[in-house]
């Protein structure tokens, strides 16, 4: 019982304990979202994911100047958009996610969603 009490106290008020013990109760990453290396608006990606239906195809356009940002956006879109399917070529996609970037190829947009922070989701005509 004493062990449980101490553990609960540590969880409730970690600041009252010495540093090495306090570290056992660290929780600085308490979020349901991925924690990528690059600064990414995961909330905007979640909003986009809610709009893309299961089984649809999507492409992702990211700035070519920042490889880390590009890799992180692609991988986070992958996990959030499933069971929609990612495609390499935007012209094969039903939807296009543009993350602070313009489309590299001409596309016919039937509907556009501005999701904040330069994140845009577009429904494409195929």
């Amino acid at each position, binding site marked *: 019982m*004493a*062990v*449980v009490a*101490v*553990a609960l106290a*540590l*969880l409730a008020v970690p600041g009252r304990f010495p540093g090495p013990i306090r570290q*056992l*109760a*660290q*929780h*600085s*990453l*308490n*979020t*349901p*979202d*991925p*924690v*990528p*290396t690059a600064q990414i608006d995961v909330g905007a990606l*979640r909003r986009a994911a809610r709009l893309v239906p*299961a089984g649809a*195809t999507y492409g992702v356009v990211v700035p070519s100047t920042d490889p880390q940002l590009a*890799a*992180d956006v692609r*991988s*986070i879109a*992958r*996990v*959030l958009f*499933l*069971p929609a*399917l*990612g*495609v*390499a*070529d935007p012209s*094969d996609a039903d939807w296009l996610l543009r993350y602070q970037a313009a489309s590299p190829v001409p596309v016919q947009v039937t509907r556009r969603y501005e999701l904040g922070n330069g994140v845009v989701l577009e429904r494409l005509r195929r």
Partner: protein
Amino acid sequence: MSYRGLLEAAVLLDGSLLAVGYALLATPLRGQPLLGWVSYSGVAFLAGASVVGVILCGLAVAGLRIDPTVFAVVAALLVVAGVVAALALPRAARARVAPASTRPLRSATPAASVVAAAACAGVAAVGILLLADAFRSSPTLDDVWGFWLPKGIALDRLGLDPRLFLPGGSYLAFDHLDYPLWWSIMLGLSERLTGSLDLRVVDVELGVFVVAMLAAAARLLASRIRPAVLWPCLLLLAVAPELHRQVLGGGADLVLAIYLALFVLCGALWLAEGGLFELALAAVFAAAAVQIKTEGPPQLLLFAAVLSVAGWRVGRRRQLGLWLGVAAAFASALPFLVWRQAHGLRNDISLSHALDPSFLAGRTDRVGPAARALGHQLVNPHNWFLVVPAVIALGVIGAVRDRRLLWLAPAALVGVGYAFWIWANWGDTMDLHFRLSTSAYRIVDASVLVAALALPFLVDRLLPGRGEG
């Protein structure tokens, strides 16, 4: 911040895996008192997870979507099968597979009792904290959302869909297509049962596996190691900073290491004592190790080989049993291996390169940096304290004292794990600095956990008073 979904997923998934494990252990444990059953909770959970995961891997290859319904049916069938077997088998058959020794050793002195109780309480407290931390931490390793979890979600919603699990099409296939499906299936089910995409569930599952490993190790060693030695050694492992970092990191390496280390422990107990219970556990733990990552099978073979050499005096029956267990583990992975082969999927690390002397000769400059980086991870006290150096030092002391090389078996196990990873990095074509900086800290996990579970044996046999309690 809501934890309800995480809690529900943990209770449903891990509770079911525990129930399956207990059903599978029902035959050997029948007749044990209630506390005896409770003490096997870690073993039961890890065995249940292994068997359920292996079957679900086969069903995924057969074309089924691995959703909660399929999981529930498989779990229910296994529970029924386990209970029926326990009830139907005659007493003599049950006795053959029952654990040989279950009664924990007692402390010889009051002081030893105090040490053991304090350390045991410490392990319990750290386990609670670890789980609580896991509930409040999102994984930091990008592999988690890059492919481990997405593969699991895809297996749940779409099945083993060639558009995502095979390269070359217009769709974006996953990275690391050669990796088996076991861990992704566990994560996919956890995510589905959470009810929303909450990546903290990955850390929760890792936390549960680590706590189960501590419980399983305690159970398997309690009847063989004095408590005043066992519990401090387990506490040393439980509070290792790197163990906590990796639970919160979210990688699969830790789960693989847990199963490999428990395979080694149970394999060694089988060779030493000849109990069928430990042999069955070794095979079950090996089966999971083969299906978690592609580096599982070669490490399993190396560890089995070291065990086999260390136990060369035990006789043909036990040696044969060990290798039959390993063969059964490999056989359980056949569906995915055949599917992989049929679709031309190769290992990320080319075996032909790694075995080509001329290829290796042209890149010997990779050996030194790999050896230094991996060695640093093994001996750095800020990671795993001094578990590995202690195992090596105690092994040497014991070998000199008793003039028996068997003392060096744990050090040899660590050594082959270390040599394997030097060789893997030597034959790899990826930028070495990138490879080592992103993976060296976690690929040594199996060697470290093997050492950590060997440490209590070494300390117990070296300290005076063995056999008093």
